[in-house]
């Protein structure tokens, strides 16, 4: 294959992991289109996510990264296009639909309630009730149980800085809030976890903690979609990299076949992939 100055070879699949990509994608999107008035958010995007992989989505501001994942997680309903899970067509009308299908999302704005405590946030919209008539008749919450299990979830992810689950989220630092949101996704996501800019507001140490959480999720067999502006973080944890540009997919590469410079060049339109990704 010959490449010109303006073209780079497309990436294919990570070496030694070909068997992963022989399987059916756990989540797949075809020709997604969404418009906001006259603004085109997505202009016919395809995306494939395979079991047990970390797929990074990179792109410049306004390229449609957040819009893409909002369409995949039910926060937006695309105008046209199809989404399939394990080959079955799905149609998410609201975030709860995607959640019921096993997709957990950590949004950029984190979607935590500042006035509620950590345990309440972890269990928001899936509260456990007390056993017996207190729970079934009076619908009383099992506050102690949820607090205990919330503490375990946070411990499992190796988050040391959060101790008291009864603390209001508004008293936490940005990194701690991020940890709470990731812990919630990790505790309940059964197939796919989507992270939108999880390290954007974090220091070096906290970023490392979040990247470790991402690797742990993959090792547990979950698929992860990671949206990030931080190229070193992407090249550290991603198996494949979906490059979003001007509302469409500019290509898919792997950290082995392309370096960061090439990735950024494709992202900004300085270079093009020699052929479209499979």
């Amino acid at each position, binding site marked *: 294959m010959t490449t010109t100055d303006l073209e780079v070879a497309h990436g294919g699949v990570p070496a030694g992991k070909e068997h992963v990509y022989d399987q059916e994608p756990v989540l797949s999107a075809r020709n997604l289109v969404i418009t906001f008035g006259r603004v085109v958010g997505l202009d016919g995007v395809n995306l494939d996510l395979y079991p047990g992989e970390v797929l990074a989505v990179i792109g410049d501001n306004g390229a449609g990264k957040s819009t893409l994942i909002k369409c995949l997680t039910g926060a937006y309903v695309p105008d046209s296009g199809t989404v399939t899970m394990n080959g079955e067509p799905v149609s998410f009308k609201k*975030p*709860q639909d995607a959640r019921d299908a096993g997709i957990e999302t950590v949004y950029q704005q984190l*979607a*935590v*309630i500042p006035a509620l405590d950590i345990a309440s946030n972890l269990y928001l919209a899936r509260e456990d009730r007390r056993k017996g008539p207190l729970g079934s008749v009076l*619908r*009383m919450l099992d506050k102690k149980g949820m607090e205990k299990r919330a503490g375990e979830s946070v411990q499992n992810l190796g988050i040391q800085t959060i101790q008291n689950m009864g603390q209001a989220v508004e008293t936490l630092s940005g990194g701690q809030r991020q940890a709470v949101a990731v812990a919630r996704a990790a505790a309940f996501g059964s197939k796919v976890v989507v992270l939108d800019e999880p390290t954007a507001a974090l220091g070096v140490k906290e970023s490392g903690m979040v990247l470790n959480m991402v690797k742990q999720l993959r090792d547990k067999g979950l698929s992860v979609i990671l949206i990030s502006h931080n190229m070193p973080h992407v090249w550290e944890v991603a198996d494949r990299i979906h490059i979003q540009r001007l509302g469409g997919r500019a290509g898919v590469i792997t950290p082995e076949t392309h370096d960061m410079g090439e990735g950024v060049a494709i992202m900004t339109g300085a270079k093009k992939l020699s052929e479209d990704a499979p």
Partner: protein
Amino acid sequence: MTADVTSAAAEFARRQQSPVQRLQHQLHGKPWLSPLFLLIAAFITFFIATPTFLTANSMGILLQQTAVVAALAIGQTLVILTAGIDLSVGAIMVLSMMVMATLAKDDGMPGILALLIGVLLAVAAGFLNGWLVTRINLPPFIVTLGTLSIFTAIALLYSGGSSIQADHLPGLLNFLGEGFGIAGFRVTWGIVVVILMYAVMGFVLSQTAWGRYVYAVGDDPESARLSGVPSKRILLAVYTVAGLIYGIAAWILIGRAGAATPNAAPDANLASITAVVIGGTSLFGGRGRLIGTLIGALIVQTFAFGLSQMGVDQQWRVLATGILVIVAVAIDQWIRKVKS
């Protein structure tokens, strides 16, 4: 320098707090404490100022006067917790009351049926508010400002503007004005109903998922929605439940006033909002406790009642209530600025 000297910040954390700072800390943890202190202070002041204030008889009257506003303030608390405001509380209550009384007197309907229709109408009125807020996406202030006029007008048109005296009404409609005495301290069934309503709603808000969602929707509706909370359904339910509460308040009001009057309780809207605000609930939503509202309603009535016992003119009482609101919110702001 010894080895155990730590950082300046750690030194600062161990600093001696002044008594005022410690108090501020305590109040921050329990936001209903400051209205409680205010209530106790008011009691002590009026006890010293007038000998007739702290008697069993006076206390009974105070509670009866508080009952209607305290009931309305439950619904108002729900709405304000969702960062809304309900200006139609009084109008819904009066409409519901006039319908109950007119059906029972003019149409000779049995008390139970008239009561049920009146309460259901209040539920429907609350539902209409909620529907306009959630489906047409209008601000609650505008919606309830409009329905305030609409319901007031309907109540006047329907009743022909005339009052209906209690002796024309079936016993059931007057029932909440009756009661029992404990050593000269008269408790009406209306007061019992209000206390029950506080107990039930307090439980729902603090112990159930629905209550948690009310706070979540009020604090950050978009985050709540993304977390899977059915925000619009919760909002619609809040306005509808508030309507139910106003309907029950209408029943209490008939018993309390001894008549159904279309221009009754003209200050019910502001009194209910005042009770909620003095009780420490944030007008921005998501923060507050129902018990604070009960204390807030008691404070407003205690000031009004105490000043009238002292023979102070009505206008001075209104003025005092205004000062009270501003002072209460100022104290609240100060408490929120606590350093942890």
